[in-house]
């Protein structure tokens, strides 16, 4: 799993996050090695999304440290936008730009952030649109696509930046059941190519087959983490047992 030779892609220690008086994260420690695939699950309100949103600082934390690709990130990190270019993120509600075509959605950051020429950016975008299996939709607007297609475009858009880590925040939760598979297939593909992935998801089959490690959170804490085999067959924490008995 974690080999000592490769430095961790994400290193979180003692992380705390408060919303007013409500503590969303309590002393969370989590190391994710390069090429590792971690699934974070747990009941709603357990802090899963907050945790991964802290990794690219869409949420700022109140205590503890986060290092991503060897660089410390917090609210005072200068040029955070530069660091975010190496951290891809896929959202529950896709968040594609509705005024841009599929291709333009994918090329925007390449052109603005990586300062690429249009032709080169388009070449990269088309490569990833091929990989998520919707090259034929390149000229359409997000509103013309199904949810599953939109989410695959969102994955391609994130991959275009060649991130070192990919964060998935419940990528299939807003999808109709028949579209979940196409998105999970693409995610499995991405995983098979060695991408470091941190996924918040309730797709236990995906966790079982793709993850190296399952992290279970409850009430802002990581209460259990183990390889999927152990997690699904012999969960040790009562809260995890209860959770699994309810969803499986």
């Amino acid at each position, binding site marked *: 799993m974690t080999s000592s030779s490769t430095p961790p892609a994400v290193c979180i220690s003692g992380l705390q996050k408060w919303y007013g008086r409500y503590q969303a994260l309590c002393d969370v420690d989590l190391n994710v090695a390069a090429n590792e695939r971690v699934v974070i699950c747990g009941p709603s309100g357990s802090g899963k999304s907050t945790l991964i949103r802290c990794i690219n600082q869409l949420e700022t934390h109140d205590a503890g440290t986060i290092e991503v690709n060897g660089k410390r990130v917090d609210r005072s990190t200068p040029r955070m*936008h530069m660091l975010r270019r190496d951290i891809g*993120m896929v*959202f529950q509600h896709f968040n594609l*730009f*509705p005024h841009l075509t599929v291709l333009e959605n994918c090329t*925007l*950051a390449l052109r*603005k952030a990586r300062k690429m020429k249009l032709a080169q950016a388009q070449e990269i975008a088309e490569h990833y649109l091929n990989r998520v299996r919707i090259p034929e939709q390149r000229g*359409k607007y997000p509103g013309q696509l199904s949810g599953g297609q939109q989410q695959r475009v969102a994955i391609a858009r*994130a991959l275009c930046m060649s991130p070192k880590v990919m964060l998935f925040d419940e990528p299939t939760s807003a999808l109709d059941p028949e579209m979940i598979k196409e998105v999970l297939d693409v995610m499995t593909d991405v995983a098979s190519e060695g991408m470091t992935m941190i996924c918040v998801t309730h797709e236990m089959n995906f966790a079982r087959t793709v993850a190296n490690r399952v992290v279970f959170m409850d009430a802002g804490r990581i209460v259990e983490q183990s390889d999927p085999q152990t997690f699904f067959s012999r969960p040790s924490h009562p809260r995890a047992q209860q959770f699994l008995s309810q969803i499986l």
Partner: protein
Amino acid sequence: MKFDPDFALSVTPLILTGLGTTLWIAVAASLCAAVLGFIFEILRRSNRWLGYVMRFVIDVIRSTPVLVQLYFIYFVLPFYGLTLPAIASGVLGLSIYYSGYLAEVFKGGIDSIDTGQFEAGKALGLRRRDVIVSVILPQMLRNVAAPMGNYFVSALKATPYLAVIAVPEMLGIAMEVGSNSFRYAEPMVAVGVIFLTLALCISYVVRLLERRLQIAHQR
């Protein structure tokens, strides 16, 4: 005194010599007001203290009469060493006045954009400036096309205020015709009809634009 249609028609060409100035001022003031209003709104959102300052500035602009602002620029600023020609004062005055209103319009237009759009832009590693220009601005313009168009029409109809600082726009010319001929009804009706025609044309174009943007949004 009876209304003389022939006299009204005969003075119309003279009044129309001010049309260019009127349109020029209206267009320039609308564009400057839009740019200024957008900058105000972006600054207002940038951090808490600047937010309070911009809130105050926008409130002051919106809560003082446009004539007071025009007089201030044209008659008061020269005492402090800033003398602007009449037309420049007029454009500046209307720009500032309408920037306050447009800032409010833009606020609504930006508020109605899903926060996920800001987050997606940020997560991709775009600079704040690029998120604003490439992600937020185009979506905001779509949201505010109709109210923004209304303020452009309003700015056009506010150009006669500039008569008080001797800008040669249409009302000023009409007043001159009136005082020379002692007939005010005809030149005033002529001015009114010209403004009515202009405003209706702009409203029509705005509605057309709005419909096209809506179709684009449904794609």
